[in-house]
């Protein structure tokens, strides 16, 4: 069965052509103000780290981005499980949108990590366990997006994508635990162990909250794009 022939759910019929609603604008405003506050906290409020100096301030956004990437891939995992279980097109859309955002976030994690590693380790890249598993995570979801984009049969693409979304998520705990399981250059977890001074922790928490709101905002916009595509496809089908 072609999923494009399915009737649009009630909430989809109320998209008003993809217009942002009051909640989107509210989230956008919270993000704009939140990013200013997060930058202030990272650059002014948090003290300078004694050994690494100012370059350590990369940590606040770098770690927040990494955690949000984990969240994004968890949503892909969840959406994939529900899709395979209930064949819910809605959850497939959520998974696909979250994977795209997760890839953007992981790309930034890799870039900012590299920019931190150059002055601290003296190299842009090393095949350290944390870095390598993160690169694999990024590659898994790039493949996921390619699979979804180039699949000629949409249902089959959704099914294979869901399987990859579930298997691929297994790399997330490996990435997280890599610094514990293997001897790595990457710093050990400091947040979970409570080793972070209070001001640094507050600066990090602000970044984390702002990025979480930003993820929700991006997801709402990204899902709306899928609804618009669906609406156009249905109109074209009814025309043809």
């Amino acid at each position, binding site marked *: 069965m072609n999923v494009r022939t399915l009737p649009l759910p009630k909430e989809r019929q109320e998209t008003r*052509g*993809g*217009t942002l609603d009051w909640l989107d604008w509210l989230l956008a405003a919270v993000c704009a103000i939140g990013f200013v506050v997060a*930058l202030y906290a990272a650059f002014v409020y948090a003290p300078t780290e004694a050994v*690494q*100096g*100012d*370059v350590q*301030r*990369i940590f606040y*956004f*770098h770690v927040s*981005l990494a955690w949000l990437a984990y969240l994004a891939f968890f949503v892909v995992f969840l959406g994939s499980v529900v899709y395979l279980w209930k064949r819910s097109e809605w959850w497939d859309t959520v998974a696909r949108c979250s994977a795209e955002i997760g890839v*953007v976030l992981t*790309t*930034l994690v890799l*870039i*900012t990590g590299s*920019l*931190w590693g*150059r*002055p601290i380790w003296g190299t842009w890249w090393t095949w350290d366990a944390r870095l390598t598993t993160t690169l694999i995570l990024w590659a898994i979801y790039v493949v996921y997006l390619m699979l979804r984009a180039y699949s000629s049969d949409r249902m089959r693409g959704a099914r294979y994508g869901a399987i990859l979304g579930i298997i691929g998520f297994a790399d997330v705990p490996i990435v997280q635990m890599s610094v514990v399981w293997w001897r790595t250059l990457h710093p050990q977890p400091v947040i979970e162990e409570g080793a972070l001074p209070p001001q640094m922790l507050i600066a990090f928490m602000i970044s984390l909250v702002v990025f979480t709101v*930003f993820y929700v905002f*991006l997801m709402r*916009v*990204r899902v*709306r*794009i899928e609804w*618009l*595509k669906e*609406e*156009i496809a249905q*109109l*074209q089908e009814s*025309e043809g």
Partner: protein
Amino acid sequence: MPPQNLVYLFAAYSIIMVVLIGYMLFLSQQIGDLRHQLTALRRQRSEGTPAKSTRRTPG
């Protein structure tokens, strides 16, 4: 820390901002294009419907 290392800090935050703003612009562009396409399709449909109905009721 040598002052030249501030370049890495500046580069990291600049890249984050540029990529995130670029991604939002990309999404905004997509929404704009799709809305334009949807409006065109709806107009085409509404213009097509009366034409058909006039043909069906010739007298």
